[in-house]
């Protein structure tokens, strides 16, 4: 018997309402001490990476989030029988408890911002020209011309990064007011200025949302994406020496299913 794991919750009680997960299978809670592993039982291998299964996995994590603190696990985490699952629960119990306590009553929100990178660069170049910031390298040889081109590119990049930092700081000040934790990624691509996730207490989610609307207003040339609330995919921390991480098959147990969440999001737009 295979057990497909959706997440770890802060309850050892049975789930009251009937929930159906991947391929319509019943979802149940397998208790370990005062926490539980939410699973579906399968006798046949579960089909990997079908869009329906990905969405069903995400939906279960979201349903659990309504009633429990949940540590969502990576899509397609399967255990070979109850003994293996309970053995994992035993070895990770303390880490799970720590994370459940830290994430209690908190939700994850995503913010992505696209900026007009080409226009920003054009603006930087024009500003440099106006302020006649010429560099002192002459161009009397190909080597020096090479250096001059490189230096101009270097300065442009430096200014570009500085502008990105400035915009991100302005936005982050607003969001951080209502966030317990955050993870920001700057310029994952030249146009994707910010890809951020914030951990927000449930009773501050409306304030966080308001902060987003406030930021979105004046920046008409920027494009914004708001998502959430999600289970805290990005804020589960397992120590490097965790027994769980020693098993390479489960190394990415709590990795966010980024591409699938994108798909899930696209469905809801």
């Amino acid at each position: 018997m295979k057990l497909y794991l959706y997440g770890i919750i802060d309850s050892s009680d049975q789930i009251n309402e009937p929930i159906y997960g991947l391929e319509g299978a019943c979802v149940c809670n397998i208790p370990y001490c005062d926490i539980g592993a939410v699973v579906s039982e399968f006798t046949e291998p579960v089909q990997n990476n079908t869009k329906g299964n990905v969405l069903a996995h995400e939906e279960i994590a979201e349903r659990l989030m309504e009633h429990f603190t949940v540590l969502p696990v990576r899509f397609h985490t399967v255990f070979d029988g109850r003994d293996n699952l309970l053995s994992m629960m035993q070895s990770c119990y303390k880490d799970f408890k720590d994370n459940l306590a830290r994430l209690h009553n908190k939700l994850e929100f995503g913010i992505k911002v696209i900026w007009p990178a080409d226009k920003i660069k054009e603006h930087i170049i024009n500003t440099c020209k106006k302020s006649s910031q010429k560099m002192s390298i002459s161009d009397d040889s190909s080597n020096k011309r090479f250096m001059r081109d490189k230096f101009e590119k270097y300065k442009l990049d430096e200014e570009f990064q500085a502008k990105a930092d400035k915009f991100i700081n302005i936005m982050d000040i607003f969001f951080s007011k209502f966030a317990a934790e955050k993870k920001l990624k700057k310029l994952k691509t030249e146009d994707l200025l910010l890809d951020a996730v914030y951990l927000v207490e449930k009773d501050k989610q409306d304030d966080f949302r308001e902060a987003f609307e406030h930021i979105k207003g004046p920046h008409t040339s920027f494009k914004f994406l708001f998502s959430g609330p999600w289970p805290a995919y990005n804020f589960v921390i397992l120590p490097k020496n965790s027994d769980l991480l020693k098993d390479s098959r489960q190394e990415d147990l709590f990795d966010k299913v980024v591409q699938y969440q994108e798909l899930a999001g696209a469905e809801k737009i």
Partner: protein
Amino acid sequence: MTLNSVVETDFPEEFVEEMEKSQDALPKKIDANPENVEKGLAKLVLTLIELIRKLLEKQAMRRVESGSLSEEQIENVGETLMKLENKMDELKGIFGLKDEELNLNLGPLGDLM
């Protein structure tokens, strides 16, 4: 309590495109198999060389900026960096590698370059 997850944007296609771009550039695993092992190794080695080349270049730019290089030194550094870049282009061409492929995902630490 009902928590309805939403994804809200007026520009869904642009965001999907950007996310795909950022994921395509950096595969999480090196694809090494008997058929492409040579390319896989070349990619790893060239990534490290590229990192060192970029560090050298950045250091040179900082010295130019601070004005601590003489005309002769700028000439010499320019020649060295240009030859290094040309050699890298040649090697990338031999192994069929693109600029954006020369990077490594270091997990929680982010990307190498």
